[in-house]
């Protein structure tokens, strides 16, 4: 085996040597041969390159085709998705969530802490017999006017509202039916009738619930003339004019059971009112409202003063109110300013503890609130009262102003997290009584349940 391999190797070497020897014999032949070989190789390679190029080209085309197919597939997938989306968008009656149920129910939590000296049950302003809810109440912690409110369209023609409120009564917490009324929705020609217990539409602030106020307490004229706000059982008729400028006129008749009235029961309307409100916009950034109101109240069952004496007679009260609001571009969300003022004039005739009394009293307030950032607002209020002096027969009685002009200066700073919660700090320099009192309040107001209404 090994021998055969060696023999064949030797044979191969011999052939090779012979060939080389033969080539070396003719160099021209040799060059020719080499050129031929090169030529052959060149054509050979060119063909192969061409072939490769062709294949590459084919491959590229295939890729592009595949890509086209893929993208058109993607395109149709997209189209399909859009169509599916469009089909899915077809309006359907979406289930109404439970909490969107009629009626609107909300609870307003109001709590405060007050640091002051003049207040409590015996709060009295010289020259005035104030209502039972006037004054800052008792110092310390208080649940203020937390309330529970339920309202709804009753059917296609009526709307109803009921409000219970909590208030402090000498250390006890009382529950009071604050409002319970029914009003029409669809009377023709802009007419509306409301009946039940409700806040009168006189003045500007009167129809607002106290938690909607910008200060922790009502201005002095409200406290002195209306006992914070005037509400009673009765009926209201109003008419909204068909004009582009808002004009509402109305009249109310009440039982006469609520301060400042106190009529003998069963004697018809113990109190009645007339009111007119108007308002509009100036450009897009400014809006305004103004009103004039009159309240006539019988006090034949007596209005008891803090010293136990009682005023019996008749009361006539005029209120002029004006409100101006500014917001950049009419958008109050981030910044806005509100200026508000009301003037009260009252004339009363009757007697106090048997002594004839006839006197005029007046009062006014002016307040400005500036919301300077989405979370923050600050404001100032000045309020004052004036009562005519009384003769010697009444000197020293609760109707004797003692030559004083009750007045207050208040500063307020408010932080609001959202529409539903706010915390406010108020400082008041109170000169409404013979003692100057520096008062400090912290108050929170939170609304849960139905979305609060943005009353103007």
């Amino acid at each position, binding site marked *: 085996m090994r021998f055969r391999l060696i023999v064949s190797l030797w044979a191969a070497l011999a052939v090779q040597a012979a060939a080389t020897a033969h080539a070396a014999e003719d160099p021209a032949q040799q060059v020719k041969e080499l050129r031929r070989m090169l030529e052959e190789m060149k054509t050979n390679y060119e063909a192969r390159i061409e072939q490769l190029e062709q294949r590459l080209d084919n491959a590229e085309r295939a890729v592009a085709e595949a890509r086209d197919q893929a993208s058109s597939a993607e395109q149709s997938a997209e189209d399909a998705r859009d169509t599916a*989306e469009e089909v*899915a*968008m*077809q*309006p*359907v009656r*979406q289930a*109404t*969530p*439970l*909490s*969107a149920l009629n009626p609107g129910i909300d609870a307003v939590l109001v709590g405060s802490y007050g640091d002051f000296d003049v207040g409590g049950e015996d709060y009295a302003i010289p020259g005035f017999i104030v209502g039972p809810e006037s004054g800052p109440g008792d110092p310390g912690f208080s649940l203020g006017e937390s309330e529970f409110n339920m309202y709804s*369209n009753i059917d*296609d023609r009526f*709307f109803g509202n009921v409000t219970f409120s909590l208030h402090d009564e000498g250390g006890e917490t009382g529950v009071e039916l604050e409002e319970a009324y029914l*009003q*029409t*929705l*669809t*009377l*023709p020609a*802009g*007419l*509306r009738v409301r009946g039940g217990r409700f806040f009168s539409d006189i003045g500007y602030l009167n129809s607002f619930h106290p938690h909607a106020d910008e200060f922790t307490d009502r201005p002095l004229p409200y406290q002195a003339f209306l006992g914070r706000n005037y509400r009673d059982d009765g009926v209201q008729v109003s008419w*909204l*004019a*068909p*004009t*582009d*400028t*808002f*004009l509402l006129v109305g009249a109310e008749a009440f039982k006469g059971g609520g301060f400042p009235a106190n009529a003998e029961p069963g004697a018809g309307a113990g109190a009645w009112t007339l009111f007119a*409100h*108007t*308002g*509009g*916009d100036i450009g*897009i950034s400014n*809006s305004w*409202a103004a009103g004039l109101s009159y309240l006539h109240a019988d006090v034949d069952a007596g209005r008891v003063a803090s010293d136990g004496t009682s005023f019996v007679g008749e009361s006539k009260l005029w209120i002029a109110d004006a409100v101006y*609001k500014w917001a*950049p*571009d*009419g*958008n*109050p*969300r*981030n910044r806005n300013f509100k200026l508000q003022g009301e003037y009260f004039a009252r004339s009363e005739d009757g007697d106090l503890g048997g002594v004839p009394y006839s006197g005029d009293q007046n009062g006014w307030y002016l307040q400005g609130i500036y919301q300077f950032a*989405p*979370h923050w607002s600050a404001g100032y209020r000045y309020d004052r009262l004036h009562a005519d002096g009384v003769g010697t027969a009444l000197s020293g009685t609760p109707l004797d102003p003692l030559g004083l002009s009750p007045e207050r200066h208040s500063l307020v700073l408010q932080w609001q997290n*959202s*529409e*539903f919660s706010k915390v406010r700090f108020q400082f008041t320099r109170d000169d409404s009584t013979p003692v100057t009192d520096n008062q400090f309040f912290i108050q929170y107001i939170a609304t*849960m349940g139905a*979305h*609060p*209404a*943005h*009353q*103007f």
Partner: protein
Amino acid sequence: MKAILSAMILAAAFAAASPARALEAFACEPDWASLLEELGAGHVETYTAINAHQDPHYIQARPSLIAHVRNADLLVCSGAQLEIGWLPLLLRRSTNSKVQPGQPGYFLAADQVRKIEVPSQIDRAQGDIHPEGNPHVQLDPRNIKFIARALSQRLKQIDAANAADYDSALSDFQKRWDEASEKWEQRARTLRGLRVVAHHVSFSYLLRWLHMDYAGTLEPKPGVPPTSSHLSELLSDLKANPPAAIIRAPYQDPKPSEWLSERLGVPAIVLPYTVGGAEGADDLFGLYDVTLDRLEEVAK
């Protein structure tokens, strides 16, 4: 005498020459005023309650608004509780029986489309959420189609005498809207997948239509104004992967978006959000044109 008589004749001729307005409409938002202009065939006179610079959530029931609802034959609003703070009060105080809920004169756009972001749980800890879903329905052109059809139907119902005019106005509008929509959708392809931070969830329908995504909102919860702590959180979350832009509506406070824009190095842009919200957004067509222009600018 003669002068008075000729003046009267002139006045009568003038009155006859001016087209008779059959319907008085009250539109809460400018988008619906624009749609009424398209579909009203000249028979509808529209008063618009708010402008593009006013936050539709926070309008007050101003005396001027009450007076105009009082005189309206038709009220067109977004609905889905967008106007919950003021519309019920307007309706109640207007004493206008024609536009009370359930009447033909009461039309809510959101009732005509399928709403998104309907919360499964209603808790104000989630912010001022709308139980019926997101009410900002005007920002998807496909919604507009559904709303237009229903609104035209309503116009015919209230003012049957001009039904033919309303029909032709609708088909004319639909034709132009379809053409425009096709163009918008072509342009929208370049915006796919774009991430943006928005001030409030006012743009959800727009983002769904354009296949874009929220990278976050400046408000910590819907209806709660941006706080500095929430903004710093957003900043640290988005630093590694910044969004293409920060978008807001013209009525939203510019400060928070400018603060974040500066620190993230991405543009803060105002989208028109509603008709009248930018130059060129004078009607519903312009609203979409300008919105796409501004988004394309930041997508480059």
